[in-house]
């Protein structure tokens, strides 16, 4: 079956073959067909390959496995398997309230115009901190978690709207005056410092 991945690799290999042919037989470009071949192999296809590869890297950077491939994120990955519904990240991950294969990105991107680009930019900064700089200990968010990211999914959902607490605090939550996470309601998120004293769920989401 043809998948986007296999198609990308096929285009790369096809481009490589055409380029190698041109390298070995540059005299081909003397003919009109050879000039067209050179234009395709040395201009159009490299552009296409670079764009396809870039897009694939962007998609890959959303994967949970990608985020957890850095050692410093290991404990945050483990926190997704905590067997306790009060652990917010674990409950979202295990119950598929977020796509499990894009768990980190789904909650830690900004749901605004260019939010995805901003998240990727932060990701590049993480790579810099990991390999060149010195990651903060303990690591922390760049700024307080915005309720907007929670409300992107929960606003309008029956379970959210019918909760008397949510109804009473509706305006404060929407205007970010009361935080979903730090106001005492949903304050156990990853809680990596307490992972030594919890049970872990063995099932795969």
């Amino acid at each position: 079956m043809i998948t986007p991945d296999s198609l990308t690799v096929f285009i790369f290999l096809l481009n490589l073959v055409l380029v190698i042919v041109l390298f070995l037989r540059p005299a081909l470009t003397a003919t009109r067909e050879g000039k067209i071949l050179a234009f395709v192999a040395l201009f159009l296809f490299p552009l296409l390959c670079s764009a396809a590869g870039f897009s694939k890297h962007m998609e890959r950077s959303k994967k949970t496995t990608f985020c957890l491939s850095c050692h410093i994120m290991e404990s945050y990955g483990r926190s997704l398997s905590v067997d306790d519904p009060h652990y917010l990240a674990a409950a979202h991950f295990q119950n598929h309230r977020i796509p499990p294969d894009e768990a980190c990105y789904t909650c830690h991107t900004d749901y605004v115009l260019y939010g995805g680009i901003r998240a990727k930019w932060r990701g590049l900064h993480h790579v810099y901190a990991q390999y060149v700089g010195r990651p903060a200990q303990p690591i922390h968010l760049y700024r307080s978690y915005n309720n907007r990211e929670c409300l992107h999914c929960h606003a309008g959902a029956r379970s959210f709207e019918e909760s008397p607490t949510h109804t009473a605090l509706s305006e404060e939550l929407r205007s970010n005056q009361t935080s979903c996470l730090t106001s005492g309601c949903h304050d156990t998120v990853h809680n990596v410092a307490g992972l030594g004293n919890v049970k872990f769920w063995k099932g795969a989401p």
Partner: protein
Amino acid sequence: MPLHAIERRVRIAAAFVSAGLLVELMALRWPHPVAFLVFALVGIPVAAAGTLVFLYSLVSVRE
């Protein structure tokens, strides 16, 4: 038989583009955060250099 100037430049362009594509392909198969940097900072510039040499050959060589 000696190569024409345009053929020599096509060969140089082909060398750059193939090197860039190889780097890009390897970075695509490497599941590591650094792979994106290799792709963007090595693969794309090398392939782009080849493309530029090719485009330059089109406008600079007089047969």
